[in-house]
């Protein structure tokens, strides 16, 4: 273990969170509905976001079982682009500030 670290671990983590939120202040959420098919949601996540199959299916199952999943992070403008794309596919997506609600 290095002995030169001068910043306590907790502070490092807090900085990292703040930096993440500064770079990605908004998120896109996809919500569950009783119409959209699991196959289709997986296909949308793989092709639009370019997620590998396992990640796409993990997020799809999160939507299905928990009612929502965070699918992307970025600026408000970027998240609006993603939400518009999701609405184009027929999925319901919203944008919200990072850490706004769970």
């Amino acid at each position, binding site marked *: 273990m290095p002995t030169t670290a001068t910043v306590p671990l907790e502070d490092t983590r807090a900085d990292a969170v703040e930096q993440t939120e500064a770079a990605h202040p908004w998120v896109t959420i996809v919500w569950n509905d009783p119409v959209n098919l699991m*196959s*289709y949601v997986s296909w949308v996540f793989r092709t639009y976001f370019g997620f590998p199959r396992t990640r796409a299916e993990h997020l799809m199952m999160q939507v299905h079982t928990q009612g929502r999943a965070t699918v992307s992070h970025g600026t408000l403008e970027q998240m609006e682009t993603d939400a518009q794309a999701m609405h184009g596919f027929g999925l319901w997506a919203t*944008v919200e500030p990072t850490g*706004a609600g769970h």
Partner: protein
Amino acid sequence: MAAGAFEARVDGGYVAHLDAAERGVLVAVVDEVVELLGGDLGMPDGDDPLEMVRLGASLVPAPTDPALLRLLPDASRADAAVAAEFRRLTEEELRRTKVGNLLRLRAELVHAGPAMVVQPGEAPGLAAALTDLRLVLAERLGVSTEADADELHRLAVQGDPAEAETGEVTRRFLALVYDLLTLLQDSLVWLMLDDLPGDDEPDPRRPPR
């Protein structure tokens, strides 16, 4: 061969077999949803940038029809200003995208004959159009939970014992249409998933062919 299900063609693309009655019903549903979206109803031409600027200049109220709201949903649950700005910026383009997808599906249905052939490049737009048809039908039929969707499927498959007495056949008919749309979309999307790169492992959820 399951009636209505898409299958892979040996020389590429996908094919579904629908009889004239099925195609006619689906065209009618497409037309209703196109009308709901305001397609062919004097929407400004998208090629005119000035028209887009004028459209973008004013606020667009959220739809009051719940089925249309499902096609063009709010992009924020908590922040009305964010939702309104999103709608102002995106709604016209979303309407255009959806109407375009639906009209391409309509053309396939009208011109196809019994075998509806879909090229891989057309499949994503078709799958999106099938989604929009199912969203509107589900909203009209009051499907808001997974249990509602299961009940609708049960109605389509088994019928309603009380149907003969009440004469209430419309719901069963729409349930059958919804089931056909689900079969078309799910079978098409599994073929689209098969054609994605890097998908060599069998998916345990994939229905048997």
